[in-house]
């Protein structure tokens, strides 16, 4: 074929024509070109323009996703123009992306603590995980949970509705819960680097903590006797009890931090000393302990005047002073309030605060101000001291001035100016000045190395916290001036990160900041968007009454109760995006380092639409990539979504702007996986855990026999969901597409009614027991029943949802352990139908072609299946084949959804399909549309078939099937072409219209025309359960041994007997288990994973049962009546294999650790060993190895590989093929007779399928 020569980024590439630039770039792994609108599974669309590349000689950029390569093209995928264009495209997209990536609480927290996510964890009762999350950014939640200034709450969107969520109180709750410190971080391997941390306050502790857990050795140098800094010496006991602080500090120290107290930087040692004495890096985290002066005459001289921070420190350091009379505190910050409330507790009779501005400008916490006022402290606003009045150096009173506020510069607080002539006098015995603090940077003079800022703080690089001395970092008040504890913690951590980087690379890298979209970056948030949110009052924290607290230092606030916590957590609006960690848009924004500030303009706002039961639509996040629209239209052909409006207003909405659930949406959820942002997301059955890391786990859906690959995204063992977004999933046989069962059905695994431990019922009472007690009890009971009633009195029932290994063990248990043939499943036994249809023809009744081959079919005939409801993904495969030109013929008497997609709908009368197919066969024989070569290779008898069909008449088609001539002739046209690839699709367990013998007739047709074993031809037999096929292949029914071995196959029976070390001749016999059960001949029954008693009528099969063992994961109607209940692992809690409808064995790995420490196979093995020594298995692999030996077909296949292909190429030639007899009694279809609509069987399987 012709080859094309192109150059990409200077690299020459020779490839075949007909590809897009993006395809070639990806194939050759030249670059990772960003794209948001492109999806390999859909037609090109080209709208996001992120994938642009430059082509030499063209004056515009081209979208690589849809531009075809041409010979000689010279392409640049990462030139400056390209990068600039992509950056602008992203900036434009984000300028109209009215959404929050993270909660504003996290965004506003200086330390970046993700409050929204830990609140979500709290609401799930996961307190330890919540605490772990907090400690990722704040190692002092016990203390901070009490004293934080709560920037998170200021930013909380609840402020717009009622009051902010009590974030800090929630944090305190989880910290208090963990007070005994059950949780400790796992320390990384020790590294040979030492860090000196100067100052044991919040920033120092934070820095020390994060360095220690990374494996670095840290020594803290503290000038005061104890660690804690301002938390200890600046915050009074009644707000933060020292005991609490000690626990928290000791917890950090216990990780291996060394401490040296009573040593002061600049006096006892210098930074140079530290560096010289072997410390590889130094962090300066000293606090702002120097109080500012009031600036009044005599303040240093007159007795009775303190400074706030000194006053508070002295109390902690030495003793509680005895105050009396009237105390005045000057200032408006937290220190002023703390000093005032402390003064009260020190014996003052009256405490007043003098503050020069109004309450609105007061920097102290609102709650603190309120608490002080409650305690009787009066605040004189707009008042400022002018002078001190003393008598003999003893304070008497102060003279104050009234102030007025005047508008300051934009963005600044209003300025207080004295009102002339407003002087007045307040008597007082003590005066405490708390108007500010500063850092004592005397050490700098001593060291003479690190440079300072104008305000006397240490100069650092704000991105790295590095000072002017290489390897020396600083953070907290020493950098910011007196600020908040949480800011100090944040800077301590930032410095720790820089120090680690410094150690690893030798230089300090600026950390890249992530881009977050936040609504308030774009526009003002109005209360309109919260109109629908119910107002809920914020929980009030319990506190000690005023009378009980003002004379002691007991902690005032008592924390939330768990109930309060849960309620408060429920108030969270969950602003941050659920798709945070998977959002491609955000990922690119980081990659291209975007800045939207120049593009802020009009933003479209929409209400989030959560009316659909599973799908949440947030058009605010939509970037018009149309992937959902196209998936819905191109793949599903449903078109429930579309674009509305034009230009800037255009957006994706459900059809006609209705609620999605009111459109023809089928709820498959494929739009969720299509969406590259969070515009369409799942309504998760839990709160949004946006920023938590998620692990991709590929496994198999366990709802039907298509065996779709699904990706279970796991946050932890109890929180996971399905998201088919990974590349490998998109390349799987289901192309990553799912039906609603596959997409949302995982929720049953999250349900709470799990069976937690083995249970035994004795004398009508149920007891929890250990597994080692339950199993011997089962043994005892079974053996006594066998003794009494004989070996045939025990039966094992297994669900076709169990894994191959479990099923194999169970049938072997029956045959080898119990020496009987009583193995089946209720669903197959009671509702199974025509399960042996193809046995005569192919040797087994299962698919003869793989699903991959559907795309190559010319004609697809769907019979006995309602794919839209039962096997949607199969329907998608057909629709894809139709796009490539395949014709779809549907044979179904009632109009099911598939009818509208069918090229030809054969609407036969119910139960008459066999007449139709028989006539087709007759026509084939008449017109010689027969594969003689195929027939000649096998031992067959066409004459016999011809004879049988002799009575079949074409007029019956019109008379009995009530089909019109035109349709019938079109049907014949499609199916009588010997060269066409024809695939039949039928669901053996379908509740859709069926008739007797029709699969047999189809088998005859396929056989006659040589379409069995021929690539791209044959039949796909779908089954109801995910492992119905494995069930048959494992020999789990009385009629078959593993490998579809029937009773007539003496040699095979002998071979298996030898493997199992037992003579099966008298065991593998004709067995009508249903009859035995009905007659009460079965006395003991072991049921694995089935719930027959959900249908009351099935009670009749239990009349003889004296002992019933049920093994299941969830409580069911059947477990309710069991004598012994064994807890089972769910399929994601253990590994195992399942066989999909086209005979491909797929592995399902263990994904979560599960409730039990054993897997289901080991229970069966343990139990079976009581009866036979032939159960020497120690792993699932060993079981699979035996299955491979026993099942005669498995030598042709393997995991993820169909054995049929190999079998048809090799073993099949020996197969004797017999045409099945399909003669039917036409009298039942006589038009004059009333039509039989449903047989009992159909009714039950229909009901059952809905209930299961």
């Amino acid at each position, binding site marked *: 074929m012709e080859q094309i020569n192109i150059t990409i980024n200077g690299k020459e590439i020779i490839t075949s024509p007909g590809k897009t630039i993006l395809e070639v770039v990806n194939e050759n792994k030249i670059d990772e070109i960003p794209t948001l609108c492109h999806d390999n599974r859909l037609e090109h669309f080209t709208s996001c323009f*992120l994938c642009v590349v430059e082509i030499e000689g063209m*004056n515009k950029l081209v*979208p690589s996703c849809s531009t075809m390569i041409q010979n000689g093209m010279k392409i640049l995928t990462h030139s400056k123009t390209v990068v600039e264009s992509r950056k*602008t*495209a992203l900036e434009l997209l984000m300028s109209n992306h009215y959404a929050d990536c993270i909660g504003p609480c996290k965004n506003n927290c200086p330390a970046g603590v993700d409050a929204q996510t830990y609140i979500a964890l709290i609401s799930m009762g996961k307190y330890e995980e919540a605490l772990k999350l907090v400690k990722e950014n704040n190692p002092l939640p016990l203390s901070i949970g009490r004293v934080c200034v709560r920037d998170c709450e200021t930013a909380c969107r609840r402020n717009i509705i009622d009051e902010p969520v009590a974030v800090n109180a929630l944090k305190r709750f989880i910290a208090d819960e963990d007070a005994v410190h059950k949780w400790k971080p796992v320390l990384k391997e020790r590294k040979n680097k030492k860090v000196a941390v100067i100052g044991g306050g919040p920033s120092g502790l934070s820095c020390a903590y994060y360095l220690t857990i990374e494996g670095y050795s840290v020594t803290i140098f503290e000038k005061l006797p104890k660690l804690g800094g301002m938390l200890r010496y600046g915050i009074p006991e009644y707000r933060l009890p020292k005991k609490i602080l000690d626990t928290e500090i000791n917890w950090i120290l216990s990780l291996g931090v060394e401490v040296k107290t009573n040593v002061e930087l600049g006096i006892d040692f210098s930074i140079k000393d530290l560096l010289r004495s072997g410390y590889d890096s130094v962090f300066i985290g000293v606090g702002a302990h120097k109080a500012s002066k009031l600036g009044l005459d005599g303040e240093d001289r007159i007795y009775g005047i303190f400074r706030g921070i000194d006053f508070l420190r002295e109390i902690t350091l030495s003793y509680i002073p005895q105050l009396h009379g009237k105390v005045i505190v000057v200032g408006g910050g937290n220190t002023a309030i703390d000093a005032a409330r402390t003064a009260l507790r020190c014996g003052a009779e009256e405490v007043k605060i003098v503050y020069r501005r109004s309450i609105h400008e007061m920097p102290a916490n609102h709650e603190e101000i309120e608490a002080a006022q409650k305690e009787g402290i009066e605040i004189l606003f707009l008042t400022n001291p002018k002078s001190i009045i003393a008598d003999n150096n003893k304070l008497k009173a102060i003279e104050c001035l009234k102030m007025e506020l005047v508008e300051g510069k934009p963005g600044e607080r209003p300025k207080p100016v004295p009102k002339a002539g407003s002087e007045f006098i307040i008597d007082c015995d003590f005066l405490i000045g708390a108007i500010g603090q500063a850092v004592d940077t005397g050490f700098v003079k001593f060291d003479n190395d690190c440079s300072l800022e104008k305000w006397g703080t240490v100069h650092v690089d704000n991105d790295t916290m590095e000072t002017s001395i290489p390897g020396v970092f600083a953070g907290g008040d020493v950098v910011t001036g007196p600020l908040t504890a949480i800011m100090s913690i944040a800077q301590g951590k930032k410095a720790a990160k820089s120090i680690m980087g410094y150690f690893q690379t030798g230089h300090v890298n600026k950390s890249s900041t992530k881009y977050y979209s936040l609504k308030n970056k774009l526009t003002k948030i109005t209360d309109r968007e919260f109109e629908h949110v119910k107002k809920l009052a914020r929980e009030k924290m319990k506190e000690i009454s005023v009378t009980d607290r003002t004379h002691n230092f007991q902690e005032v606030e008592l924390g939330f109760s768990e109930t309060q916590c849960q309620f408060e957590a429920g108030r969270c609006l969950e602003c941050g995006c659920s798709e945070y960690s998977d959002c491609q848009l955000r990922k690119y924004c980081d990659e291209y380092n975007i800045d939207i500030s120049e593009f802020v*303009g009009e933003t479209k706002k929409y209400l989030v639409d959560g009316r659909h039961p599973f799908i949440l639509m947030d058009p605010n996040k939509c970037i018009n990539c149309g992937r959902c629209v196209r998936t819905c239209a191109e793949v599903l052909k449903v078109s429930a979504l579309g674009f509305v*409006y034009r*230009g*800037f207003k*255009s957006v994706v909405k459900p059809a006609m702007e209705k609620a999605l659930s009111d459109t023809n949406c089928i709820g498959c959820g494929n739009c969720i996986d299509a969406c590259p942002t969070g515009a369409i997301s799942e309504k998760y059955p839990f709160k949004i855990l946006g920023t938590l890391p998620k692990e991709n786990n590929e496994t198999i859906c366990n709802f039907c026999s298509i065996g779709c690959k699904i990706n279970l995204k796991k946050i932890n063992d109890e929180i996971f969901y399905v998201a088919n977004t990974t590349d490998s999933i998109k390349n799987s046989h289901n192309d990553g597409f799912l039906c609603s069962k596959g997409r949302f059905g995982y929720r049953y695994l999250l349900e709470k009614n799990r069976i937690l431990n083995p249970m035994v019922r004795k004398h009508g009472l149920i007891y929890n027991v250990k597994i080692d007690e339950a199993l011997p009890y089962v043994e005892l009971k079974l053996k006594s029943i066998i003794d009494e009633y004989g070996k045939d009195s025990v039966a094992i029932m297994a669900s076709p949802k169990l894994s191959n290994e479990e099923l194999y063990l169970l049938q072997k248990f029956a045959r080898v352990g119990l020496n009987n043939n009583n193995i089946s499943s209720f669903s197959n036994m009671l509702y199974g139908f025509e399960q042996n249809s193809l046995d005569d023809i192919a040797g087994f009744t299962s698919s003869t072609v793989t699903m991959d081959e559907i795309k190559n079919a010319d004609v697809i005939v769907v019979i006995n299946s309602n794919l839209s409801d039962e096997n949607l993904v199969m329907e998608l495969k057909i629709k894809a084949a139709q796009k490539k030109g395949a014709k779809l013929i549907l044979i179904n008497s009632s109009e099911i959804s598939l009818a509208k997609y069918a090229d030809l709908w054969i609407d036969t009368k119910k139960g008459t399909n066999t007449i139709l197919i028989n006539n087709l066969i007759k026509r084939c024989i008449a017109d010689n549309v027969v594969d003689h070569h195929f027939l000649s290779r096998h031992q067959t008898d066409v004459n016999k078939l011809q004879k049988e069909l002799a009575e079949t008449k074409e007029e019956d088609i019109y008379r009995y099937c009530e089909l019109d001539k035109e349709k019938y002739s079109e049907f014949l046209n499609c199916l009588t072409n010997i060269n066409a690839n024809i695939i039949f699709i039928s669901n053996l367990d379908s509740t859709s219209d069926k008739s007797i013998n029709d699969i047999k007739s189809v088998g005859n047709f396929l056989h006659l025309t040589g379409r069995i074993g021929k690539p791209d031809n044959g039949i796909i037999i779908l089954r109801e359960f995910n492992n119905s096929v494995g069930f048959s292949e494992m020999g789990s029914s009385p009629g078959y041994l593993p490998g579809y071995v029937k009773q007539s196959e003496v040699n095979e029976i002998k071979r298996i007997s030898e493997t199992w070390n037992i003579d099966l001749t008298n065991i593998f016999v004709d067995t009508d288990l249903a009859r035995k059960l009905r007659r009460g001949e079965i006395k003991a029954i072991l049921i694995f994973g089935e719930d027959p008693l959900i249908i009351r009528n099935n009670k009749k099969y239990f009349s003889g049962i004296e002992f019933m063992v049920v093994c299941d994961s969830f409580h069911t109607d059947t477990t309710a009546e069991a004598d012994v209940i064994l807890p089972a692992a769910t399929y994601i809690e253990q590994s195992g294999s399942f066989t999909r409808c086209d005979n491909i064995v797929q592995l399902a790995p263990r994904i979560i650790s599960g409730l039990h420490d054993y897997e289901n196979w080991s229970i069966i093995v343990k139990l079976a060993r009581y009866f036979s020594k032939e159960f020497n298995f120690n792993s699932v692999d060993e079981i699979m190895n035996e299955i491979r030996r026993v099942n005669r077909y498995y030598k042709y296949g393997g995991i993820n590989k169909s054995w049929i292909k190999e079998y048809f190429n090799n073993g099949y030639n020996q197969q004797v093929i017999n045409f099945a007899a399909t003669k039917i009694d036409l009298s039942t279809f006589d038009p004059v007779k009333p039509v039989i609509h449903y047989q009992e069987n159909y009714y039950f399987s229909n009901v059952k399928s809905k209930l299961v």
Partner: protein
Amino acid sequence: MKKIKVGLGTCGISAGGQLVFEKFKEELKLKNIDAELSETGCMGMCYEEALVEIEDDKNDVLYSKVTVDKVGRIINDHLINGNPVNDWIIKSNEFSKEESFFKNQKRIVLRNCGVINPSSIDEYIANDGYKAIQKVIEKYTRDEVIDIIINSGLRGRGGGGFSTGLKWKFAKSTQSDKKYVICNADEGDPGAFMDRSVLEGDPHSVLEGMMIAAYAIGADEGFIYCRAEYPLAIKRLRNALNQCRSRGLLGEKIFGSHFNFDIKIKEGAGAFVCGEETALMSSIEGKRGVPKLRPPFPAQKGLWGKPTNINNVETYANVPWIILNGLQEFAAMGTEKSKGTKVFALAGKVKRTGLVEVPMGMTINEIIFDVGGGIKDNRKFKAVQMGGPSGGCIPASMGDLKIDYDEITKTGAIMGSGGLIILDDTTCMVDLAKYFLNFTQLESCGKCTFCRIGTKRMLEILERITDGNGKERDLFLLEDLAQKIKMASLCGLGQTAPNPVLTTLKYFREEYEAHIFDKKCPAHNCPSLITYHIVLEYCKGCGVCIKACPTGSITGNKKEIPVLNESLCIKCGKCYDACKLDAIIKV
């Protein structure tokens, strides 16, 4: 016998032509006068509508601005007494008031407009109609037809200017069992009405052009995609199609050959982007009108994936003329690379607004001053906006520029489909750019990022500038965004949307700067940047301005100089318009 023709294009009807027509009908019947009354299309002098032409053997008289009231006298004096009403005549055999209007035009596309009755196939046939298709079928092979069109130099009149013949050649050379021809009649540029007038005035010429194209490329089905806002055009097209079908000119075995062809009309819902050929096809297919990436071009994969030829109305209308008159005659007109004529819709501040057809190569000044009669109110010619929202502004200083595809493209504007908006010194160029950008921004289909959000952000910057909040960096931002939008948009709409901004920035940058730095609008147009003042010397205290002001910001007593309170003024300009003494000025 006298023949009375009333101009009943949309322009004529809106000027009362239909009423005039009815009046004539009534009077002729009443007075039992033997004269033939018929309708005709737009004669081009839209500014003089309603136009009535009275023809007899000797004379051919054109009355302008005819109203119902005038009909009686025209009938009486002219028809009954044989004395034409000289005062109302605009053109006759003896004289023409608007001589330069006609003298400088060359009417090929408009050859039948205003001449024949568009509802009559017979009149079209009488004027050589359908002779071209007959000639083609009987005389030429398909390749020969294509060669004629290639060699004539005809280029797509929709704006792109691609060689029509080559386009046909590509469509012909793509193998397919089915091909289509489409006539793009989705004329959407503000101020453009060339195609409408042709469809209303001479629908058959378009059909004939399409038939020739279909014959040449091997198509058997055609679509006319016409905007639903052109009801009269659609009505006349429908009528024309029916006439063709009943005469066997459409359908099977046309002129006894093996050529089968029929045409359907598809009404567009008025989305501007549907004028883009891929979006247009998507719309015909019943989908959302959204463009696709080319290649593949329509000639390779067009309507329903089949090879398709798309030309616009004016292009098709040229085709029969070229076939009948020969390619040399066509190629003789124009410049080296732009042949034939071009129809323009003159609009804006020009004296004669209307439809003109001039040979390629004529200069802009000639069109404006000779054909268009110059600038209204004799103000200063500032610039001409060409090509609609995709085009740009060419300053007066470049008035000697010749009408030529490539010359115009060099200026940053485009030939476009033929909208010519003439601007005088009262037009603010920033405001003008804002107007066009607002148009494209609203009409963007919303598919591509740059066009959807980029044009919106550009518009916001322009709004900021005209509101007096412009920043120095805005000019950089505008140019930067404009370049990026041009570089990375899927279709022509996005790729050309920044042109009005870029050309005004190129030629009138100082106006932008005045808005940003001096907070002044030099054209005294942007309300935020102007204030109204009363000039004491001119004011006579008549008080009209007081009455005109809707907000009561002008107060005063009669015979006294009124006072304007700026804080109440909303700058609507009503006082300015009301004052006859020029005593109110904008500063």
